[in-house]
């Protein structure tokens, strides 16, 4: 009896949470797949026809937005690596006893709502706002110069919003490096540059991978930045999905596009997960 209980215990512990995830996370994905294969319209309702036309139509109509999302996601992720790596490096190796203070400062943005932060940028960058207003009145930039409604504004906003998610895993990986390994490299007459390129950089790669995983997905699928900072000509696939689902209520098209986005992202994630092992990724994600 007691042995049976011991073997059942983990399943009893898992049961309620797993049930919740099954009903509200796993099953909805299947439901969405079935929705994407339906035909019909808002007025007459939709019926399951096992028809792929929503995918064909959706992708052919919105391929610009799909490609733009991938490009914006990729660029903002690269910018985050370039901006974030030196920060993670400095805190990990030179942060000393104040490491946690620096990490806390990096996490401050998360204490303000994502939407509010983005709107604050819109406000700061607006055509005659805090940044451009003074610059224009001093004649440093032309009167018709603008930052909002450009792809740079959207990519910058995405890079800003997800940067801490990039820095933290990189920091975790760098912080784990045993200083004795670096000493060993120097004892073996490696120059500082060689030590960095052949010891520090390879050891930091799992952190970079985890950071990419945590930032590329939300950046590529975001619609808040494009909508607040990008105007009408820089819409991403997220904007289309949101619009089709919530405004037009064209569920098959919206579902097909969500599924396409998910498939594209999954391919990337599984490539990373395979290279790393999911256990590692989860561990880094938990920190």
């Amino acid at each position, binding site marked *: 009896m007691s042995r049976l*209980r011991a073997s059942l*215990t*983990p*399943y009893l512990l*898992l049961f*309620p*949470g*797993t049930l*919740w*995830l099954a009903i*509200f*996370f796993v*099953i*909805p*994905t299947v*439901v*969405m797949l079935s*929705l994407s294969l339906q035909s019909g319209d808002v007025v007459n309702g939709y019926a399951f026809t096992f028809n792929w036309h929503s995918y064909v139509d959706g992708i052919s109509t919105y391929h610009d937005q799909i490609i733009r999302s991938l490009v914006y996601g990729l660029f903002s992720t690269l910018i985050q690596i370039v901006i974030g790596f030196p920060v993670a490096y*400095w805190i990990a190796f*030179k942060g000393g006893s104040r490491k*946690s203070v620096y990490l*806390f400062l990096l996490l*401050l*943005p*998360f*204490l*303000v*709502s994502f*939407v*509010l*932060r983005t*709107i*604050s940028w819109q406000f*700061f960058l*607006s055509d005659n706002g*805090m940044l451009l207003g003074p610059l224009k009145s001093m004649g440093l930039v032309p009167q018709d110069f603008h930052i909002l409604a450009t792809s740079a504004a959207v990519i910058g906003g995405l890079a800003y919003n997800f*940067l801490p998610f990039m820095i933290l895993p990189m920091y975790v990986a760098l912080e784990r490096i045993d200083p004795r390994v670096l000493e060993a490299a120097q004892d073996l007459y490696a120059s500082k540059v060689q030590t960095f390129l052949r010891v520090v950089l390879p050891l930091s790669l799992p952190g970079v991978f985890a950071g990419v*995983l*945590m930032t590329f*997905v939300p950046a*590529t699928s975001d619609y*808040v930045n494009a909508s607040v900072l990008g105007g009408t000509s820089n819409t991403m696939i997220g904007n289309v*999905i*949101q619009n089709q*689902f919530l405004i037009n209520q064209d*569920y098959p098209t*919206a*579902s097909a596009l*969500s599924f396409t*986005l*998910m498939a594209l*992202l999954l391919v990337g*994630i599984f490539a990373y*997960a395979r290279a790393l092992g*999911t*256990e590692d990724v*989860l*561990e880094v*994600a*938990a920190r």
Partner: protein
Amino acid sequence: MRGGLLRGRGLQIYTWLVIAWLVLPIAVMILFGFNDTHGRFNTTWQGFTLKWYGKLFEIDDLTRALVNSLLIAVLTMLVAGVLGSLIGLALGRYRFRGAGAMNLVMFAAISCAEIVMGASLLSLFVTLAVPLGFWTIVISHVMFSISFVAVTVRARVMTLDSSLEEAARDLGASPWTTFRLITLPMIFPGVLAGSMLAFALSIDDFVITNFNSGGTVTFPLWIWGATRVGIPPQVNVMGTLIFAAGVLIAVANALVARRRANA
């Protein structure tokens, strides 16, 4: 050596610049909560005032949205806190068939794009004709928070020594007593951290809420809706107060941890 020193200093300045960049929009938000604006647009500096702190709750819809957000966050914290902790405990403490699959589902839930989660949950609700509103938001928030709580608690459980529990059992404690007196106090910091994470994720969530809210409005949704007509200073003040509360909790937490480490 000199070059190294310079480079170290350069990186330090650089780090502070990045931190400044991260904090800049927050500073702007806080500043314009003190702006003595009169029109509908709170966009140009008109002078310092504290009046918006006094008129904080004068916009009824906004106040209701904030109350909704807080209620949803507390419910999410409680439900996801318990369900996620149980999963974390199971995964951190026991070896069993299916643990790999469970880890995979949680990994998928953590790394899944929010818009895909929101859209698929809406697909379910639409298909079953479930009316959208307060409770569908709570359901969705619990759904995306569970895995984060579980991973946090699992990390804590894995660092603990199970011999204390074995000792309690050897001394004749029932499983429930062992759990109550040994396991729970040991994993509690993880449970607390996970629950607070769930609260923070919930109160900030926009995307999944946007899909599953129906007519119910939360704080981020209200701000989103007000973007086109202008954000009133009350939003800045509420944002500032939430920010300040977050900083206070984090600092208090750090101080307690430090005192404990020194003791």
